[in-house]
């Protein structure tokens, strides 16, 4: 297209080279007009430039910040106002690794108030030599509040949806069990279909709730020291009724004598194990076996969920963690299932800094193995969940 077609005068082209002063003025204007807070430092971490948005967010004037050592002047804290270790701060990580770092964290403003921020830090490099860093941050207090309200709403809505389903299931079971008089085999068969449909609806509600939580990156990370063998025993206790229904032998064992303790989010671990074990029970024929094996390692805990089930066909193995994927051999046997369980499990394990893999032979069974670090991944420790 000819430049004159869009009304650009010919005499403006070609663009002249900017002088060093002009370039500096341009950079200054860009820096000042950024809507997010922006601070640059020299290679020692001393503040060299602060834009108006940063001053407004932190409550300090430019004069109060220039020349100060960034980590000392701008205090990073946890959500409950406890100072964060220098090594865990995004700017330190960017300096040490030379790579950009994106995290959520909290800063303490001049007036002591704590604000939630999404931070991006990059090193400023010249011919590979660090000259300093630039940190850009924005207030995410409102986003966090919206996320919290969304989570609360989903949790409440899922509970309210399940209550009438529980009534449908309980009364249907009571009809089958003859509480209101004996039924004929056809009537019982029809009512079992009602129960299967309510089970499917329950499963959908549960899994959609968790996938929504995962995708919003909004799973609470509250690491505490937990014992993996105790969590496994709890899951067995909760799912034994389900396993008994198919005469499946559900058991667990710990290999070795080392401690099975790890610092992690116990509710997320329970969710992972509940999904893997209930899947194993569901996809194992009657009178089969499902076993949880906990193997403590030096820096991680390895958990295996071994079943004697129908197995995953070779052709389906690559897609097993994909959203809404269900293997053909299973679809033929088991109509319930969302294709979201393993997608969720993988997402949760990633969020906890762990890994998952499996070995399966069609007709013989499947072993899902996952390992979790003994100490929660730093990304998660600061409330940022990688997806």
């Amino acid at each position, binding site marked *: 297209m000819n430049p004159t077609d869009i009304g650009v005068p010919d005499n403006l082209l070609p663009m002249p080279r900017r002088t060093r002063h002009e370039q500096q003025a341009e950079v200054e204007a860009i820096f000042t007009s950024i809507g997010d807070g922006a601070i640059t430092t020299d290679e020692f971490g001393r503040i060299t430039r602060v834009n108006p948005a940063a001053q407004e967010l932190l409550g300090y004037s430019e004069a109060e910040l220039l020349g100060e050592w960034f980590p000392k002047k701008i205090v990073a804290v946890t959500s409950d106002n406890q100072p964060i270790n220098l090594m865990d701060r995004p700017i330190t990580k960017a300096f040490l690794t030379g790579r950009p770092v994106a995290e959520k964290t909290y800063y303490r403003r001049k007036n002591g108030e704590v604000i939630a921020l999404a931070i991006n830090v990059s090193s400023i490099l010249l011919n590979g030599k660090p000259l300093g860093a630039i940190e850009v941050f924005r207030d995410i207090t409102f986003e966090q509040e919206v996320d919290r309200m969304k989570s609360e709403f989903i*949790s409440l809505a*899922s*509970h309210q949806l*399940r*209550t009438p*389903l*529980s*009534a449908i*299931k*309980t*009364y249907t*079971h*009571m009809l089958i*069990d003859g*509480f209101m008089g004996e039924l004929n085999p056809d009537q019982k068969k029809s009512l079992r279909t009602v129960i299967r449909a*309510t*089970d499917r609806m*329950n499963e959908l509600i*549960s899994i959609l709730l968790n996938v929504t939580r995962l995708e919003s990156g909004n799973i*609470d990370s509250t690491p505490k020291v937990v014992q993996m063998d105790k969590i496994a025993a709890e899951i067995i*206790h*909760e799912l034994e*009724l*389900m396993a008994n229904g198919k005469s499946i032998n559900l058991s667990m064992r710990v290999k070795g004598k080392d401690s099975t303790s790890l610092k992690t989010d*116990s*509710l997320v671990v*329970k*969710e992972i194990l*509940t999904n893997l074990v209930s899947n194993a029970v569901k996809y194992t024929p009657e009178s089969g076996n499902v076993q949880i094996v906990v193997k403590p390692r030096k820096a991680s805990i390895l958990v295996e969920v071994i079943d004697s089930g129908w197995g995953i066909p070779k052709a389906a193995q690559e897609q097993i963690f994909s959203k809404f994927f269900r293997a053909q051999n299973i679809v033929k046997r088991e109509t319930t299932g969302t294709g979201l369980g393993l997608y969720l499990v993988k997402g949760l394990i990633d969020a906890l800094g762990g890994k998952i893999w499996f070995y399966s032979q069609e007709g013989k069974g499947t072993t899902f193995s996952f390992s979790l670090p003994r100490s929660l991944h730093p990304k998660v420790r600061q409330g940022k969940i990688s997806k």
Partner: protein
Amino acid sequence: MSSILIVEDDRDLNKAYSTILNREGYKVETAFDGQEALEKLKNFEPDLILLDLLMPVMGGLEFLQHWNLRNKQKSDVKVLIFTNMENSPEVTEAYKLGAHRCIIKSWTAPHNLAHVVNDTLQTKSGKTKSSKTSKTKA
């Protein structure tokens, strides 16, 4: 005969649990929120409380806090949480407040409810119960 207090705000479910456990041979009292349960407990000491968590007026957790204060945590009454809030912080809190077991409502069939109630009553309890085997349906 073992006795049970059912604390469940959903009237249909409350009636269903009451019918099921009555048929299994338990003496059953019902309440529709935590506050009503505290009132009932002034004149009725059950062997087990079947407790929902999310209820109007007073929820299960608040009920447990009040009840613990009143009993100074010396009671040997079993508390079985019956909820749909699986893997939630509320369940963890309920265990801290002395709950013995937690069952997910939507996963539990009536015959399993009787089985779990019976099983919970038996755990670390010095109390004797009448005709245990006849109470549990296969």
